[in-house]
């Protein structure tokens, strides 16, 4: 690559060299202790995740097995609501355990704003921040997690990382980065009018996470 901006960068850096010799430019990278934010070893990752999710106005349900998850779903969803689901087979299976009617979000692109609830799984979660990690290569959940006013996410307890650093390593580990990765920490929020916290501006107003395990 050789263009005028790269040439400009190189010539200005060259001009800087004599000044740099006089300055102490901190080029040495120091090692940082990656302390988890909340160090409480008695708390399980799932419990820490729940606390941090609730601190950002998210709801958390701990369920064991598919029957319990399905029951949790029927408790969250109000009968008659239009439901969109991702293409994850687990979500479809769970919906069959309930007697709720489902529609896939992507079937009618000009109709996407008329759904009430979106349901997906997520590929990982982060305990120290209460964050969900969505990987586009594994599931089509970009829109179901964003457009309906309610998003219900299902995560396996074994997929909860302790720290942000751990989650970033997991995403990068040995494989090509997925085309779209999304982190979600609580429902959509704004404080743009008089600094008053308002939940649900562009994304979901409510976020439910069902932890399996």
């Amino acid at each position, binding site marked *: 690559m050789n263009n005028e901006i790269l040439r400009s960068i190189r010539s200005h850096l060259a001009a800087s060299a004599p000044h740099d010799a006089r300055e102490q430019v901190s080029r040495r990278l120091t090692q940082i202790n990656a302390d988890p934010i909340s160090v409480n070893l008695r708390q399980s990752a799932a419990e820490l995740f729940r606390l941090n999710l609730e601190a950002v106005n998210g709801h958390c349900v701990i369920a064991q097995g598919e029957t319990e998850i399905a029951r949790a779903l029927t408790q969250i969803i109000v009968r008659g609501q239009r439901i969109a689901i991702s293409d994850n087979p687990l979500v479809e299976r769970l919906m069959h355990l309930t007697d709720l009617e489902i529609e896939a979000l992507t079937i009618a692109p000009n109709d996407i704003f008329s759904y009430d609830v979106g349901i997906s799984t997520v590929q990982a979660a982060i305990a120290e921040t209460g964050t969900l990690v969505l990987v*586009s290569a594994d599931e089509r959940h970009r829109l179901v997690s964003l457009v309906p006013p309610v998003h219900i996410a299902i995560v396996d307890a074994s997929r909860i990382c302790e720290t942000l650093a751990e989650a970033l390593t997991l995403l990068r580990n040995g494989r090509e980065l997925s085309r779209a990765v999304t982190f979600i920490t609580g429902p959509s929020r704004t404080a743009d009018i008089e600094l008053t916290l308002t939940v649900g501006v562009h994304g979901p107003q409510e976020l439910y996470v069902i932890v399996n395990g």
Partner: protein
Amino acid sequence: MSSLTSETFRENAKAALADAQLRGALKNATSLFGERRREAAASLPNWEALRTQARAIKDEVLLHLDRYLEEFVRNAESCGAKVHWARDAAQANSIICGLATERQARIVVKSKSMTTEETHLNDALEAAGMQVVETDLGEYIIQLAGETPSHIIAPAIHKTRGQVAELFTTELGMPPTDDIAQMTHTARLTLRDHFAAADVGISGVNFGVAETGTIVIVENEGNIRLTTSLPRVHIAVMGIEKVIPHFADLDIFLKLLVRSGTGQRLSTYQSFITGVKKQQSDEGPEELHIVLLDNGRSRMLAHPVTRQSLACIRCGACLNACPVYQQIGGHAYGSVYQGPIGAVITPQLMGIEKTSQLPYASTLCGACREVCPVKIDIPRLLLHLRSEIAPRKGSIVERLAFKVWARMMMSPTLYKLSSVAGRIFQRATPISRAWTNDRDLRPIESKSFHDLWNE
């Protein structure tokens, strides 16, 4: 409001000081964000180490910016993104208008981006016949009102809920209310129509990861996700300084950015976008264009003092900490970048001629340096810029005064004489009315330290 320029900084500041509503809003915003930042930083035991590390990474990138940019471009393009290089604002705007026009775009949705405000992209798109809709709630409010942002994190902080309600009633037909949730809901519904109709979505970029070609965008509202998911074409505008080496570095930079900006642990949404979708049936845009903007940035590389301006991650912490910004707010700076970092970046981007008052908009107290997550020495930068301005714009009286002062300090006799003269003249002449109107000037002691020592 939008017509203010940096050339009239002093007048702008005076007007802002007389605006009680603005000052009340600023006090609330800066103290709230400042307090949240303090708590968030204190909750991380290794905060100082994170700052040092982040700065070291930035220094490394900036010293080899050409190589990191080449790596970023190679990796982004290998995943299907198309990268465009823009030397200045005009070229960036013409590239973006060209892309939108070729695709016969009529409606463009935008998420908050300082870089596109820097290039005045909206004016260019509108001149090309397109409707541009800002989708961040604060930005949407000020776009409807025809104003400019007053705060980097809370762009419409200068408006009361009453003013927003009135605006939405007039412009959007909302029934009168003072309920902020209702106003927010009105904006949600109106903007969804725009999202559904938009042909192109334009966003900024918080970080570009060299090793993966990923762009990272951070937000709370979800409008960035909609902007980058729904339209067929996504154009991301990125300053050339936004590149970081490794995906794992995001651990440090996300922690610092979010905690310094809003005091959250993480913002609600982080979008990590690497190229375009692999097959038609996947979700997301078909095209991703990344516009790399220089616009005066590469010039800043030429000296280590100015180069550190490019380490800025646009968190806004220095604005909240600055005693000048706390009083006058963002509009007075007459520029896109405001507060302490604005006072050093604006003159470097736009040239010193029209912005020479900005480096003086500081008491050099150092609060900005204390809070900066990447340890930019803003006071030193301010002094550096002042030293460039002074020979050109400094007053003759000032220069003469310092010459006389230097002469006096070098001669013991003249020095003694001057202290005697000072004692007499201080009482005799009403010096600096502007100063003594609100303060008492301590009289010079009748005996100097010298006199006492001799006794």
